[in-house]
């Protein structure tokens, strides 16, 4: 008899979590009316394949995909590649014409001209207007028009932004204080600050670190180009050989050669920000998305000591750029509706806010203005600098042509020559010649 009592007690105890779970479930069905009104399950049973590059945003999305799968019944197959390989792999998939990819990440400023001309990206306009497919709470107007507009070609939308980034000058407050340096507002002040710190520390601390590795360097060098009054294209021809461009390249190279890390010509963003995060460099000018890296005490020796500012002004003013990663649907995808549901979920207000809280600059106004973000903002300086930078930024950061890679490599040659102290004028004119030849052979 005692035994039976024990057993029933154990059974009761074991089943209690079930009860609790059951209660939760009943509570869960009490969802907002708008969600009930929109049929997330309409594409249930489909599998979509997504190609992504290793980006902090993907780190936010990846663990949440199970939630999307449970909500929609769509199975998501997410493939993540390092950035260089990602770009190559994505294009090879497209060229093959037989890819089973449905959604891919794309930087419209980098690749949309090419992808649009080749007919690889699907127009999203019909689905953006469809009552059955547009989630009523999605709120397209909430997305910054510069970010949404970057995905427009010939009046049609081809990309939905997942973030809007700019480049910021990040500086080590401790080092600045130690050497009595204030935040540089002009290019002259920037160089003077770098010099003071490099020479003051006897060469132990680099004044500044920037990307120096060929094509990758052009992403930030372009802001110096614009701030010195140069352009990628002048009347449809290469602008790399203009006086303004030569002055910008010379300046960029001189900063690194005299006050930067010796390894600059082989540094891409990863090496460059690593040097900054080890406290070996006082400043870095790179993408605003790297704030979570700078502020992560596990990765960064300078977490909590970083200040942020917009690019210092050159002869033509302070001209940073905005760029954005976005999601596109492959033109030959057989699951465009399911893909569109995924895009809406992945770029929703909730995920945008969650991303922003983790330091990924959102492309949605609501995220920046939310109380959750404002109250929890541990780096208001970064927020202010980002917003200031958006206001003065140019949307152009890559040559606005189809053979982007070749033109970036050409400019990269001149940048490397400038860092190494070679003849910048000759290198810039050679780069101009290469770029013009590339433009002639499209």
């Amino acid at each position, binding site marked *: 008899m005692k035994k039976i009592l024990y057993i029933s007690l154990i059974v009761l105890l074991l089943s209690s979590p079930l009860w609790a779970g059951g209660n939760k479930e009943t509570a869960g069905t009490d969802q907002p009316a708008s969600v009930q009104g929109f049929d997330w399950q309409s594409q249930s049973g489909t599998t979509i394949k997504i190609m992504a590059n290793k980006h902090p945003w993907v780190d936010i999305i990846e663990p949440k995909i199970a939630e999307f799968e449970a909500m929609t019944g769509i199975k998501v197959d997410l493939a993540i590649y390092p950035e260089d390989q990602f770009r190559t792999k994505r294009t090879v998939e497209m060229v093959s014409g037989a890819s089973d990819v449905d959604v891919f990440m794309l930087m419209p400023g980098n690749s949309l001209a*090419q992808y649009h001309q080749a007919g690889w990206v699907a127009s999203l306009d019909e689905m953006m207007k469809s009552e059955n497919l547009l989630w009523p709470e999605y709120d397209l107007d909430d997305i910054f028009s510069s970010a949404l507009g970057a995905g427009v070609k010939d009046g049609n939308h081809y990309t939905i932004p997942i973030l809007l980034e700019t480049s910021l000058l990040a500086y080590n407050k401790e080092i600045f204080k130690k050497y009595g340096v204030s935040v540089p507002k002009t290019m002259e002040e920037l160089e003077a600050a770098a010099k003071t710190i490099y020479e003051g520390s006897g060469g132990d601390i680099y004044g500044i670190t920037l990307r120096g*590795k060929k094509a990758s360097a052009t992403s930030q060098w372009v802001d110096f180009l614009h701030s010195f009054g140069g352009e990628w294209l002048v009347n449809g021809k290469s602008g790399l050989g203009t006086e303004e461009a030569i002055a910008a390249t010379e300046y960029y190279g001189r900063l690194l050669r005299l006050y930067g890390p010796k390894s600059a010509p082989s540094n891409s963003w990863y090496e460059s920000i690593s040097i900054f995060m080890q406290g070996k460099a006082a400043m870095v000018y790179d993408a605003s998305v790297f704030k979570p890296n700078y502020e992560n005490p596990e990765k960064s020796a300078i977490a909590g000591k970083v200040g942020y500012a917009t690019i210092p002004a050159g002869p033509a003013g302070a001209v940073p750029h905005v760029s954005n990663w976005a999601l596109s649907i492959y033109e030959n995808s057989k699951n465009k509706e399911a893909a569109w549901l995924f895009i809406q979920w992945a770029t929703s207000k909730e995920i945008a806010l969650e991303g922003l809280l983790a330091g990924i600059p959102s492309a949605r106004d609501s995220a920046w203005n939310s109380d959750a973000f404002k109250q929890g903002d541990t780096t208001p300086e970064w927020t202010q600098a980002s917003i200031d930078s958006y206001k003065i930024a140019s949307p152009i950061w890559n040559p606005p042509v189809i053979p982007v*890679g070749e033109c970036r490599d050409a400019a990269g040659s001149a940048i*490397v020559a400038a860092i190494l102290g070679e003849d910048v004028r000759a290198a810039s004119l050679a780069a101009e010649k290469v770029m013009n030849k590339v433009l002639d*052979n499209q």
Partner: protein
Amino acid sequence: MDGKTKYGFTLPALILIGIIVLFPIIYNLFMSMNSWFVASGKGPEWIGLKNYINLLDNPRFWNSLKVTFIFSLGTLTVEVVLGTMLALFLNREFKGKSIVKLIFLFPIAATPVAVSLIWGMMFNYDLGIINIIMQNLGMEPLLWLASPKIVIPALIITDTWQWTPLILLIVLASLESLPTDPFESAKVDGANIFQVIYHITLPLVRPAIVVAAMIRSIDAIKTFDMIYVMTQGGPDVASENLNLYIFQTGFSYFRMGAASSLAIVLFTLVLVINILLSVIRKTGAK
């Protein structure tokens, strides 16, 4: 069996070789006479020999040839000399010989990408162990992969570490199978060790050295993985060899026709060098 049946038996092999060897070469040759800018979405367009003519005044092509040549010659020389010397040194009976041979196998067995990643880190200017050791020895740290002047020597060092053992093992195997008579009569005649090595050992193992050199030269000329992982051809194009330039042209710039013409150049280069080496081997045998 009549005269024609025998062809029937070789036919499947011939078809297979035709599909997987001959067809790609011929198709590549055909592509190299087309202009095909894949990124434009347009199809290939026949332009005859224009891709080849364009190569003539393309400084990046000549640079890549130069890099290929210096890198291959450098690795081949160092590895053949070092490998043969080590083989001569190890060609005797001593305790633990099989273990030593096994240890020399390790670098060959390692994945080139993993090896390159580790060497890339060791060559790092600020954090690499090589510069730390050099500084402890009182030397100035070197830029290694960040310097256009010493990036190729750095790559040669890495390649030497990985592939010298291959030469060593081939030459050692050949040494161990040599007849003992010539050495005994040389000893009787009073030849010293250097005379024996120069006049007897080296001529006898020459075919083995040439075979090892052939294998290594093909590999060195078409090296890709190591350079791609360690420098991606940089700084700028200082370590961009022909194979890397082909990859860039084809898969970063999407100019398939131009990439095909470069591939034909590489193919011809490997072919010519192998014909040369096999001639050396045959004249040596006589």
